[in-house]
C-alpha cells in the first residue's frame, strides 16, 4: 500500500507539471490549433488531478466540458478571426510586457497567499461521497434559488440572441407573415 501511495503522489505531481508546461506552451507555439489543444491538454491534466481527489463527477465533467469547449473554439477562431490568421503561423502573445508583469505579480500574490494563510488541520474524516458533500457545501440552502435562476438565465441568453439577430420574422415570412416556406439565406433541415 505504501508503494501505491508513493506512485499516486508521483502521478499527481507529474500531472501538475504536465498542466503547467502545456499551459505555458499555449504562449510559445505559433499555431492557433496547437495553442488551443495545448490548453485542452492542460485542462485534461487538471481534470485527471481532480479525479485523484475522488471528485469523480467534477473531474470527468472538467475533461468533457474543456475538450468540447476547445473544439468549439476551433470553429470560432477560423470563423471570426479577421483575415483568417488562424490558418497561418502566428504569434500567440500580444501586449507581452504588461501581460508577463501582471502574470508574475498575480502568481507571487497567490503563492504568498498559499504560504501565509494558516491552513486548518483536518477535522473528522472525509465523507463517503465527497462530490455530494462538495455540492452541499457549495449550494446547500441556495439550491432552490439556483434552480429558479437557471431558466431566467437561459431566457436572457435566448432574448439576447433574438435581439441581436439582424433578421426578424418579417424578413423570413414577409410583411404579412404569410410567406411559406420562409425566405432564409440558409435553409434549415425541418422545412419551417
Amino acid at each position, binding site marked *: 500500500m505504501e508503494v501505491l501511495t508513493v506512485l499516486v503522489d508521483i502521478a499527481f505531481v507529474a500531472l501538475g507539471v504536465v498542466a503547467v508546461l502545456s499551459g505555458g506552451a499555449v504562449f510559445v507555439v505559433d*499555431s492557433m*490549433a*496547437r495553442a488551443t*489543444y495545448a490548453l*485542452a491538454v492542460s485542462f485534461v491534466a487538471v481534470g485527471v488531478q481532480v479525479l485523484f481527489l475522488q471528485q*469523480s*463527477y467534477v473531474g*470527468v*465533467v472538467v*475533461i*468533457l466540458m474543456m*475538450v*468540447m469547449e*476547445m*473544439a*468549439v473554439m*476551433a*470553429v470560432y477562431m*477560423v470563423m471570426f478571426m479577421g483575415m483568417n490568421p488562424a490558418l497561418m503561423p502566428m504569434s500567440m502573445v500580444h501586449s507581452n510586457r504588461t501581460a508577463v508583469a501582471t502574470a508574475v505579480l498575480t502568481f507571487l500574490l497567490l503563492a504568498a497567499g498559499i504560504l501565509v494563510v494558516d491552513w486548518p488541520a483536518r477535522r473528522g474524516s472525509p465523507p*463517503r*461521497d465527497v*462530490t*455530494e458533500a462538495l*455540492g452541499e457545501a457549495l449550494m446547500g440552502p441556495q439550491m432552490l434559488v439556483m434552480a429558479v435562476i437557471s431558466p431566467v438565465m437561459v431566457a436572457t441568453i435566448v432574448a439576447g440572441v433574438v435581439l441581436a439577430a439582424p433578421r426578424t420574422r418579417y424578413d423570413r415570412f414577409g410583411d404579412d407573415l404569410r410567406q411559406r416556406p420562409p425566405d432564409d439565406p*440558409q*435553409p*434549415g*433541415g*425541418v422545412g*419551417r
Partner: protein
Amino acid sequence: MGEPLLTSLPAAAGPAVVTVAPAWAVAVVAVLGALALAAAALDGVLSARSASAGGAVGAAGRPLGEASRLLRQRRRTTVQADTLLWRTGGAGLLVAAALMLAVVPLGRWTVADLAVGVVWFNAMDVMVWALVWLVGWGANSAHALVGGYRFLAHGLGYELPLMFALVAPAIAAGSLNVGAVAAAQDGLWFAAWMPVAFLVYLLGVAGFSVWGPFAPALGTDVAGGVRAELSGVDRLVLETGRYALLAAGAAFAVPMFLGGGAGPLLPDWAWTLVKTLAVLALLVWARRRLPALRPDLFMEIGWLVLLPAALVQDLLVAVVTVWRS
C-alpha cells in the same frame, strides 16, 4: 447534464459488478479489436452484396486484404503538415474507443467500475470532436479541413441529444454507474420503455463514429474530407478507430438500454457479447439504408426535433421513476 444525479452511488445491495485486475485491460483491447474486425467483415459482405460481386467468404476477408494493402502503402506527406496533431487525432480514436469500453461490464466483470461511468463515456465521445477535427487540420489541406468542420457541425447537432439520451437510463436507475444501470433493468429493458432515448443514442453512436448518415465529413464531394490526405498505415489506423468507436458504442448500449448480461441459458458475459454484436450489425447494416445528413440541415433537425424529443423522454422517465419510488 443533470446535476441531481451526481449524488448517486450504486444503491442496490452488494456490488453489481466485480472489478478485475488492471492487467485485464489487454482483454478489453482484444475484445475491441475482435468486434471492430467483425464489423469490418460484415461491412465487406454487405458491400459485396450491394455490388453483387464475389462470394461471402472472400468479401468477409476484404477488410484484411485492404489492411495489408494499406500496411504496404507509402505514407503520404504534405507541405507544412502539423504532423504531431495529425497523428494524435488519428491514433486517438482507437484510444477513446478503448477507454469507452473500459467502463462496460462484460457480464459481471469490469475493468473500471467508475461511479460516474456514464459521464466518462460521454467525455470520451466528446474527445472524438477534438480528434476528428485534428485529423482534418493536421494535413494542411483545404479538403481535409472542410471535412473536419463538417464533423464539428454534425457534432453540434448530435451531441446534446446524445447527452440527454444518456440521462434517461441514469435517471431510471438512479445511478451513473454502468453496472448499476444494467442491474436496474430487472425484467424490463430500458430500450423497451424509453425507445426515443435508445434511437437518439444509436444516432449519436453513428455520429461519433463518422458513420453512415454522418459520413459527409469523409465525403467524396470533398475528395475524402478528413481522410483526403491519409494513406498507408495512417489511413488504416483511422478506419480501425472508426470501427472501434462503432463497436464501443454498440457495447455501451447493452448495459444502458438492453439489460446488460441478462438472458436465458447462456452466461451473462455471452449475452453481453451477443447483444453487442446485434447492435453492431444493426449499425453496420444501417449505413447503406440511411441517407447522408447534410451538416447544415442536420443542425436544425438536431436542435428542433431530436433535442426536444430527448428532453420529453427524460421528463417521462423522471415522472415514471418518481411515481414508482
